[in-house]
């Protein structure tokens, strides 16, 4: 734990020094500030890779690096460092690498802390088959939108009597309405044709019934988008047989967790899947959802694709579609070419070589 204290002291000092310098926050020379949280393990190296590629693409992004370690605030409540929170509140956009969750550290997971701090209520994962990275499933093109604040992950559990445990799943009208509205807005803004609500209202009549009802109500205001509902088990059954029939899926927390990972598995795993978290007050944090991979950390073997695609998602969120397309195409072309691939993609190049190749392609596109 000494390491944590040392790091948070350093970041407090460094952060203080940085904020004393004049910091043009946003829109100076068209630059947009993004809070970058490199994370642990392979986090720093893949963050560096993304920054390099963005530089090569001349993307108008100004990175503000911050570290998030849990610190105990006044009142004994765990929170993220104030510099990180302030930076995010100002920039509203964040890019995050993998964070490790130490067991028995006494504090909740960092991901959970971030989620609570910024009220990140929607987890969005677009799953698109990557040409050149073969999986048994081709032509996958769907988006899972998962309610991220309540449901089965409310963390409320009790031991009723010895040997009987009760876990509470919480579904509220407010959260269901919010996620349904986000799903339909997303569909409209990204030209998606249909939204499917995934539920188990035949068994969980009241809770999923409420969720379903709110989705139906919101669908009334979005008549241009087709709305369907499907049982969770039917979705799973059909997803592994024919994933092309799905477009945008919206669902409560647990189903979202399972389905988004299932869909990630269809396109090749967490190493190539982007993810974005949308919060209240316009905050959006994009992240790679794989682990910290401590065994390959610092050895220049990591694959930055997941973080890069999340950064591309971030560019699209910011309206910089041209830049996004350029970087994404360079990345996919590199993978399709198969000449320079990291080990997990089937090659034996280093992370820096893979990054360099993408940078070269981006520059060639100028």
């Amino acid at each position: 734990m000494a390491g944590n204290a040392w790091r948070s002291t350093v970041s407090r000092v460094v952060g203080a020094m940085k904020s004393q310098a004049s910091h043009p926050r946003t829109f100076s020379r068209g630059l947009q500030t993004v809070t970058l949280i490199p994370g642990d393990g392979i986090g720093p190296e893949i963050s560096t890779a993304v920054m390099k590629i963005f530089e090569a693409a001349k993307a108008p992004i100004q990175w503000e690096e911050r570290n998030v370690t849990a610190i105990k605030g006044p009142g004994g409540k765990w929170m993220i460092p104030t510099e990180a929170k302030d930076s995010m509140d100002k920039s509203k956009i964040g890019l995050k690498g993998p964070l490790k969750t130490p067991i028995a550290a006494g504090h909740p997971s960092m991901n959970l802390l971030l989620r609570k701090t910024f009220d990140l209520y929607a987890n969005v994962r677009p799953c698109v088959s990557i040409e050149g990275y073969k999986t048994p499933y081709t032509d996958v093109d769907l988006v899972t939108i998962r309610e991220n604040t309540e449901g089965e992950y409310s963390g409320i559990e009790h031991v009723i009597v010895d040997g009987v445990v009760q876990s509470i799943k919480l579904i509220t009208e407010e959260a269901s309405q919010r996620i349904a509205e986000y799903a339909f807005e997303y569909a409209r803004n990204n030209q998606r044709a249909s939204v499917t609500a995934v539920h188990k209202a035949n068994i969980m009549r009241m809770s999923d019934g409420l969720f379903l009802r709110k989705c139906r109500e919101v669908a009334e205001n979005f008549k241009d988008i087709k709305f369907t509902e499907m049982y969770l088990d039917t979705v799973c059954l059909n997803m592994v047989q024919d994933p092309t029939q799905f477009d945008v899926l919206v669902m409560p927390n647990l189903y979202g967790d399972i389905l988004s990972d299932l869909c990630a598995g269809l396109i090749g795993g967490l190493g190539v899947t982007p993810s974005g978290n949308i919060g209240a007050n316009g905050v959006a944090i994009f992240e790679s959802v794989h682990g910290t991979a401590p065994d390959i950390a610092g050895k220049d073997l990591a694959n930055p694709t997941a973080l890069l695609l999340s950064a591309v998602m971030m560019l699209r969120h910011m309206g910089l579609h041209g830049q996004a397309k350029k970087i994404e195409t360079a990345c996919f072309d590199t993978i399709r070419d198969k000449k320079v691939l990291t080990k997990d993609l089937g090659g034996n190049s280093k992370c820096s070589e893979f990054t360099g190749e993408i940078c070269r392609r981006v520059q060639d596109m100028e």
Partner: protein
Amino acid sequence: YNSSLTKPPPAKYGGRHTVTLIPGDGIGPELLTHVRELFRFCCVPVDFEIVSIDSKSTSDDDMNNAITAIRRNGVALKGNIETNHNLPPSHISRNNILRTSLDLYANVIHCQTLPGVRTRHRDVDIIIIRENTEGEYSSLEHENVPGVVECLKIITRKKSLRIAEYAFNAARQNGRRRVTAVHKANIMKLGDGLFLQCCKEVAAGYPEITFDSMIVDNTTMQLVSKPQQFDVMVMPNLYGSVISNVCAGLVGGPGLVPGANYGKDYAVFETATRNTGKSIANKNIANPTATLLASCLMLDHLRLHGYASMIRKAILATVSETRLHTADLGGQGTTSEVVQSVMREIESKGPRTSEQI
């Protein structure tokens, strides 16, 4: 598939068994009619007592009749009963009531790649054992504050030990090497933590079987990339729904996989994925394979192994005939063609007299 934890009822009345038949909704009635047709053709010593359940009615009489009939006969074959969403939330799923009233605690699904069915993955052979009576399906929900609904997921030590015992026993009896517990104990620390703890305790009594565990989201990811790594899987109710549907999809879909629900005293057989198939009902296009294979599981349970293997062999021979594949397998065959083919197969290969079965 072998199971010694449920006793089958003894044959009464001239060596014939009586089995409760619940047609259900959607494709249930037509497919179960085919089962009766096939059994008549093969002279299977089973009589069906048909009990209908009207899914639109709110009265409990139908359910009580069905439960009484199953208690009396000990064994049932059923189609899925639709849950009417227009009725208030207090109207609990009929299928769920059946499972909990009869304490059918183990839902067993064996997913195997079938010859002649084209799938993305080969050599899949997974036995899924799903806790069938508690967990998220406890039907305990309330709305204390308007707009805030709480749904209770119950995990008990007793039922977790019971299902774990069932899983390891089944693994041992079927010569399986490995049991994987599927859970989400990193988030639901107490609930799934208890389940996992119980599995570990039971595993200690089966040293020849490897026990490991996997978090449910990782499990689904692994299933769609490398399903061959799994052997026997045991899990609580909801994850069981997800995993069994994923595995059924991997081996060819809802039309192929049979399922069984075992309790201490009763056994109910149905399709693995429990679909009503409303949109394809009464069009003669539904795939009868899952229902027919479920009836074979029932015959095995009744110790009528000769009939069971005779019919099963014929079904597997038919399913490998691509030109007979129904729409769900990408073909244009009809339900009746498949059933006719099974009967012809039995006639040509089967024994001449019942003494030979």
